[in-house]
């Protein structure tokens, strides 16, 4: 054995292959090291001390920050280590509201998991965080300080990946907690509602806001007509918890489940995405005719992502005129559905959107998206909440037979389906703009760099004499880095922004997945393949909409202006 490349973990030689720390190597060796504060995409924080290992001749060290060296002999499971891990867990539990059964993250909590794994049989210290200590000000997430173990994952997510900086540590020692500037309620902070903090939170300290209670009541009310739209990303993310494979398309089963739960009409947001593609393509073409001076050197930014809109309003209000005036697919669909309803039915109409996203809850409450003073979307339910509703209904999801969405909005295209993954909006727009309408043309677009889970992608596209430069970013830190580049004079024609890394498939409303993040995106590309129509402009529904309901009302129903400051819009 070449001792230069190996170290020994619990007696087993393990090859060092460029792992950045011991923890990765130990996990590679198949050992489930306990951690709270380690996320490979975040900086190494080293605070939970659960991953301590014994290094022969080197004493104890945290595996997350120790460098692998050839010849090291490492023990991960000794009496001493177990003792310390149990003590740390006991200490964390002593300062933790242990209302597990009523916690939003019950059975989905790392602290609960590890307490069970390490056989914590009792806590010998008085509980200093008995009751929940809630901040319910945000429309997107709910915080409970007394469930926080101060691992700092949310802080690093908010600062490092999202560049929002809404939360940080405040106070010190045992008084330390996570808070906003001046410890104001989250709604008064610069939080954009992306919810990624909740996604990485290992306990129930930050959870997605649960809006299902009133919805259940409306579902039961015979005088209420409940329509629902389901976003593309939802179908590939909820199955894992309900007996399907990660990334498996569960749309047909979702439709069946929703119908069993009492929804009156069920639609697919992909349909509205086709409207977005057509409108945004037109807008883009019109901008291309304008001179650089008229555009101020700015590209067209996409507008589907509500957290991105919030981020832009708070940090780059000067860019708002360059954000596409298209409403998000959810809002386009909602206004179309509400307009249709107003013309046809007398029952009270409630429209529900099932979304992968927490910020959509805020978007639904924005004053721009109302009709006669009523919001177009009455409830935004995240994938997580839908899963809970399905479970509550007693439905055996995996065994449901797939069903189709309802008329009249049943036609959709592959272009709309791929909206849920980073690059999807751009790919759909390019399908619309490309003059090559062959199958090979589609392949060429897919291969030109739009796909993949990278946070920043760039494509160059010949268009006549010009070459169009398009950037696709996900993660708001990537967005602000790109904006700084643009301000320094870099030229782009179109910029697609999704706040969540990887796009909506990894939205904070989805069940959190640390591994196989690409699976969900692949699931959407597979669903695209199964669609007979791939281009939005070929959606037969579009023609009838433009000639019917939308006639003379395109601007009113499909566009919006985010002109004002976010402060006028009310806190989320």
């Amino acid at each position, binding site marked *: 054995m070449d001792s230069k490349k190996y170290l020994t973990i619990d007696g087993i030689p393990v090859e060092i292959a460029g792992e950045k720390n011991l923890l990765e190597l130990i996990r590679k060796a198949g050992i489930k090291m306990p951690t709270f504060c380690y996320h490979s995409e975040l900086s190494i924080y080293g605070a939970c001390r659960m991953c301590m290992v014994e290094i022969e001749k080197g004493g104890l060290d945290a595996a997350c920050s120790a460098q692998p060296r050839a010849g090291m002999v490492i023990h991960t499971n000794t009496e001493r280590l177990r003792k310390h891990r149990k003590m*740390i867990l006991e*200490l964390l539990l002593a300062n933790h509201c242990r209302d597990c059964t009523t916690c939003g993250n019950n059975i989905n909590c790392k602290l609960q998991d590890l307490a069970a794994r390490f056989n914590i049989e009792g806590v010998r210290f008085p509980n200093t965080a008995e009751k929940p200590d809630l901040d319910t000000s945000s429309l997107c997430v709910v915080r409970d300080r007394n469930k926080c173990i101060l691992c700092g994952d949310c802080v690093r997510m908010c600062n490092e990946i999202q560049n929002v900086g809404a939360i940080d540590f405040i106070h*010190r*020692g*045992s008084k330390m907690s996570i808070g906003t500037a001046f410890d104001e309620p989250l709604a008064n902070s610069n939080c954009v509602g992306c919810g990624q903090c909740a996604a990485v939170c290992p306990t129930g300290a930050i959870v997605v806001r649960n809006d299902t209670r009133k919805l259940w009541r409306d579902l039961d009310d015979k005088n209420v007509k409940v329509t629902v739209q389901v976003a593309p990303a939802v179908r590939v993310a909820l199955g894992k918890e309900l007996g399907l494979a990660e990334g498996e398309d569960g749309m047909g089963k979702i439709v069946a489940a929703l119908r069993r739960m009492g929804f009156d009409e069920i639609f697919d947001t992909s349909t509205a995405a086709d409207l977005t593609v057509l409108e945004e393509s037109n807008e883009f073409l019109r901008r291309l005719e304008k001179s650089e001076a008229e555009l101020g050197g700015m590209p067209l930014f996409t507008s589907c992502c509500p957290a991105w809109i919030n981020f832009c309003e708070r940090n780059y209000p000067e860019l708002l005129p360059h954000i596409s005036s298209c409403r998000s697919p959810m809002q386009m669909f909602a206004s179309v559905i509400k307009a249709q309803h107003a013309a046809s039915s007398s029952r009270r109409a409630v429209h529900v959107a099932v979304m992968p996203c927490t910020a959509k809850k805020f978007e639904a409450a924005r004053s721009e998206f109302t009709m006669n003073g009523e919001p177009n979307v009455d409830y935004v339910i995240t994938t997580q909440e839908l899963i809970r509703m399905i479970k509550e209904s007693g439905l055996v999801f995996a065994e449901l037979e797939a069903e189709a969405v309802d008329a009249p909005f049943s036609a959709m295209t592959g272009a709309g389906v791929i909206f849920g993954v980073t690059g999807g909006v751009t790919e759909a727009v390019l399908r619309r703009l490309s003059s090559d309408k062959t199958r090979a043309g589609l392949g060429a677009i897919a291969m030109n760099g739009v796909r993949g889970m990278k946070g920043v992608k760039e494509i160059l596209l010949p268009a006549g004499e010009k070459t169009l430069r398009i950037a696709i970013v996900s993660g708001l830190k990537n967005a602000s880095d790109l904006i700084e580049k643009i301000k320094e004079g870099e030229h782009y024609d179109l910029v697609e922004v999704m706040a969540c890394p990887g796009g909506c498939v990894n939205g904070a409303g989805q069940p959190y997945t640390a591994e196989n993040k690409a699976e969900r995106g692949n699931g959407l590309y597979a669903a695209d393949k199964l669609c007979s129509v791939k281009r939005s402009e070929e959606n037969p529904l579009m023609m009838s909409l433009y000639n019917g309901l939308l006639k003379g009302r395109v601007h009113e129903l499909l566009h919006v202006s985010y002109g004002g400051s976010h402060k006028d819009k009310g806190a989320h």
Partner: protein
Amino acid sequence: MLKTREDLKAFRALCQKAVKAEPRKILVCAGTGCIAGGSLDVYAKLKEVMAAKGLNCSVQMEVEAGIPDVALKKSGCQGFCDMGTLLRIEPQGWIYTKVKPADCEEIIEKTILKGEHIGRLAYHHEGRACKCAAEIPFYAKQTRVTMARCGEIDANYIEEYIAAGGYEALEKALFEMDSDRIIREITESNLRGRGGGGFQTGKKWSQVARQKETVRYVVCNGDEGDPGAFMDCGVMEGIPHQMLEGMIIAGYATGASEGYIYVRAEYPRAVERLRGAIAQAEAKGLLGDNILGSGFSFRLRINRGAGAFVCGEGSALTASIEGKRGMPRVKPPRTVEQGLFGKPTVLNNVETFAAVPLIIEKGAQWYRSIGTETSPGTKAFSLTGNIRNTGMIEVPMGTPLKEVIFGVGGGMREGATFKAVQIGGPSGACLTNDHMDLPLDFDSLKKVGAMIGSGGLVVLDENTCMVEVARFFMNFTQKESCGKCAPCREGTRRMLEILERIVAGEGRDGDLEMLEELADTITATALCGLGKTAASPVISTIRSFRSEYEAHIYEKRCPAGSCQKLKRITIDPELCKGCSKCAKVCPVGAISGKVKEPFVIDGNTCIKCGACLTTCPFQAIKEA
């Protein structure tokens, strides 16, 4: 502006000439301790008296000015804080102690004008007046090397420092040595970090010097946060230029062109004097671009800490300078690789930098001739507590504990018996009578589970409860924990909880074992050095004074008699005559009884104020 080495030499000659020309000098101690005791009033009074007597008194050395009758100066800390306000009279070298403004008239009249010694202002040892430092055991038993100039020169003027040989080491470094040579000298001297860690300074410098990154920083840790430590404060206030000189040399040796001094904001005088020193050094061309024409440029900035103990930890300190929350981070990368602003950084303590010019000037061999083989040189300590001579002292490394306590310190105060000495602050431990022969150096202390820390020595007598000492330090550590890592944040809180219970008489069986268990986990798993040592004060007191803990827990008794809640005040029915005086003074109505019959105290209501004790005419009330 001094543009060349020759300029500096010429200027030094002028300064020395001016110093020599001062016929008489009064150095008023203007260290923080003496100022608090009113030394600035003494200074003002002296000035006033001299003016009234028509004496030509200079307060600032001006190299070209005429010769004054008397030079009145504010010195840095003269060390013997217990005896403040201290005055040093030159050229005789007399030391006057406990000087009050009322003494000033006499001092000018007799000492300055007539050259007479005033016996009553001298320090008295065994009934004999000691005129000079050499006669005062507190000074005589010290070896003042790093601090030699502290208290002997005016801290406010660069001319004084230059006249005393200041910046000669910088000259030598810039014009006679290269980077390698300097680092070799420091390495050979085996100078070890005075901030507590004891890491070899030369090694640190050479690691920074060989980094690929060329932007580097020199950072001075002046955050001195240990309760009871004030040596760094003394250096920064008394010999700021000596520290700056050390930092400039470090910058030259390691290729840094910028440095930061991180001073705790609670040291406003240190900040003010450092600011002044930097401005003067810049004006003289000893800091800034192309220092003395050597081609080497170096700038210094001051960063005031915001009062967090944890910012004394290297990576928390650099984070704090960067404007971030002061929290230690995981290593690697180490500070020498990626320190301040992610650049290679030399981070040393105040006293370490202050020692550098001496080593450069006198050589590694000389430095190694002081102290021990593995801990050469001297160490400054802050000596406080129930000891005769409190103050700032400097002794060779390896000096036995008893020499410090009973030699320099003069032993315990009247009537007190030595119980323990707390060394190293919240990271340190308690040494007892068993450790009297223990040499005070990095390695010997480590062997007994203690550490030199930054050098605070708090001497405790038999009336000090060791459980309370442990509680005090745990309270400090718990409050000052940054809160980052779970074992330190949550563990110290629980240790404090238990200790608070024990001193309140609510200790339970198993508490000691739980303290040990918690200490074990915190020590083994905490993220930073401060966390790893957070339990030391508790562990060391349990080790040496276990029976005292047990008395609290099992007998609800404080052997030192200091824990308020464990005091029991009772009335001896045999002695009580039932006069009811005690019941009348009791502020909480805890005493009741019938007149002419023995009274009783309700222990639950009693707040142990002791009012009854002093009132009873029959000594019938007892405290236990």
